[in-house]
């Protein structure tokens, strides 16, 4: 099964019952799979007139109580930034999949890239925090799609799956276990009666319980700065309170959200820090370096945003250098550099896109890093 299809299956296993999308290479197979599968499980799949509408429809469906998803790539991702911001502001659980291709602009539509990593973090206007995950294989995208829905329901935030064309189009064996209901997170619903409900009064974890349309709560939600009632309040104080909470509900829960994997880092003084498809090339490069006697290790970032700051800081105490292969001209390396400070070097191994790195390129960077 290819990665696009595995993502669709992961979504259905997670309980997704609404998909709205617009055709774009290399994410179209995902929409095609959803259009076939959702009617079989009582869900709704609609091809909208553009990506602006797709993202808006996903938010609407979520507010009607369904788990909802859309999928796109580069240019479509740009168009979705507008309503992604609304999703953040209204605290709407949903999942947005970006099967990245090489940009800027139309770029290399059929070929891979990782150039949208900073757009994932900062693409919509204003101050906010978001969750983004990076899968490395069809099996991984299946698993991470379930995780993405769980995180979005738990924290009431859009979750991004930042895959790439290679992961989306490669075919590998995917095991799809039946997911038990206890392994699926559902948004917290209000415990109070209509009339007593304050749509944006948070619980202790800073996440407010969420009512859905049609149940008599008569709630109002707005993209304007608002108070706990959901009413617009155009003051500095209200804005401060709201933006702090939107950001802090992710930042203060980062230990629950951030996931990474490590290979041979225990004694490593050169650590390759990679994400997405580049992890699999980096694994080869690290093995080759070990054969040469270089104490190399690999840190795989599963959660890209919020960033694994603390782990990079800790590793910077033992490592001489981080080697960061990216299919772009340097994005996540900036974060690694920031967290490593002057304790360890951060060495970018850039690749402009269209294909993946060769293991040799990364190996050479590891060798240089030992100097």
């Amino acid at each position, binding site marked *: 099964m290819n990665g696009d299809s595995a993502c669709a299956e992961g979504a259905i296993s997670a309980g997704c*019952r*609404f998909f*709205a999308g617009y055709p774009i290479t290399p994410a179209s197979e995902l929409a095609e799979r959803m259009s076939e599968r959702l*009617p*079989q499980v*009582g869900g*709704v799949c*609609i091809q*909208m*007139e*553009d990506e*602006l*509408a*797709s993202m*808006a*429809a*996903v*938010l*609407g*469906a*979520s*507010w*009607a*109580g*369904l788990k*909802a998803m859309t999928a796109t790539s580069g240019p479509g991702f740009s168009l979705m930034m*507008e*309503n992604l*911001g*609304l999703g953040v502001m*209204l605290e709407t659980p949903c999942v947005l999949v970006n099967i990245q291709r090489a940009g800027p602009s139309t770029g290399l539509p059929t070929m891979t890239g990782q150039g949208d990593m900073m757009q994932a973090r900062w693409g919509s206007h204003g101050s906010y925090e978001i969750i983004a995950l990076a899968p490395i294989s069809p099996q991984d995208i299946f698993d991470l799609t379930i995780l993405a829905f769980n995180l979005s329901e738990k924290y009431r935030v859009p979750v991004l799956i930042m895959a790439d064309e290679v992961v989306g189009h490669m075919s590998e064996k995917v095991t799809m276990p039946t997911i038990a209901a206890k392994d699926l997170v559902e948004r917290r619903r209000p415990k109070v009666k209509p009339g007593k409900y304050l749509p944006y009064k948070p619980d202790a974890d800073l996440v407010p319980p969420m009512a*859905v*349309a*049609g*149940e*008599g*709560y*008569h*709630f*109002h*939600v*707005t*993209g*304007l700065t608002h108070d706990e009632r959901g*009413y*617009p309040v155009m003051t500095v104080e209200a804005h401060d309170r709201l933006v702090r909470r939107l950001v802090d509900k992710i930042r203060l829960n980062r230990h629950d959200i951030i996931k990474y994997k490590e290979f041979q880092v225990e004694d490593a003084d050169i650590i390759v820090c990679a994400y997405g498809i580049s992890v699999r090339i980096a694994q080869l490069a690290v093995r080759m370096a070990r054969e040469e006697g270089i104490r190399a290790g690999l840190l795989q970032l599963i959660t890209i945003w919020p960033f694994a700051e603390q782990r990079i800081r800790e590793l910077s105490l033992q490592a001489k250098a981080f080697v960061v292969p990216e299919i772009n001209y340097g994005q996540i390396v900036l974060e690694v550099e920031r967290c490593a400070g002057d304790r360890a070097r951060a060495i970018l191994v850039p690749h402009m896109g269209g294909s993946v790195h060769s293991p040799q390129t990364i190996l050479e960077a590891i060798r240089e890093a030992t100097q």
Partner: protein
Amino acid sequence: MTDTLNAKNHSIEKYLRQDRMPHIWCSGCGIGPAVSCFLRAIDRAEIDPNKIALVSGIGCTGRVAGYVKLDSFHTTHGRAIPFATGLKLAKPELKAVVFSGDGDLVAIGGNHLIHAARRNIDMTVICVNNFNYGMTGGQVGPTSPLEARTTTTPYGNFEPPFNLPYLASASGASYVARWTVLHLRELERAITEAMIKPGFSFIDVIAPCPPIYGRMNKMPLPMDSMHYYQEKTIIRHGADPKEADITLNGPILAGTFVDIERPTFQDQLNHISSKVNAQV
């Protein structure tokens, strides 16, 4: 006062968020009367208010969502229709109502308008058409008549405007009507009919914007527009919407232009789903 306004159970206060008053609209604005007609139409159409999802975009009319005591969504500029599409398809028991302005629905949101009409999504779109972008200070809009003065057409508008009933009708709407906010009873009835009608319904509500558009076009007082509507409105039900063009200070064709039966998106979806489930 008319019988409609006095009718039993037609009190609209229960549907208003009194704790949000006063509203932001200028005196003489046409949005208020349109909202009143809509709120009365809820009872008249015997719709369960718990099942209404009201969605607005951005602009003066975009603020409607914030004043009604219903599940209400103040969304992004132009995207009220696709947001409402998601709500409606995810929960078909909802009555989706989009309340927004001409700039929001027809300029930045124009693509969504025509595609929702083409699909015959079951929703009612109430478009308060005041011929300009009021909230941002009175710029030219997609319905500004030729020669109209706006802040971005200081020498007069030279872009031909959209004829909204014609646009909605040509795009596939099942129900299309136009009234001015002088025609409260007719407007209330049209919104009632639209909300009962399965499929995509569109109402073009001609509304004054006295302190901005009106001031720039020699109708600075609220009563100026009312006199204009009284003198120049021609009511012709069933008229060809092609003839519903609006010119500066010219006649306003009003009435119900389209009222047809056509399978809705939900009808087609149910049909496909039952076919799929028969196979599975």
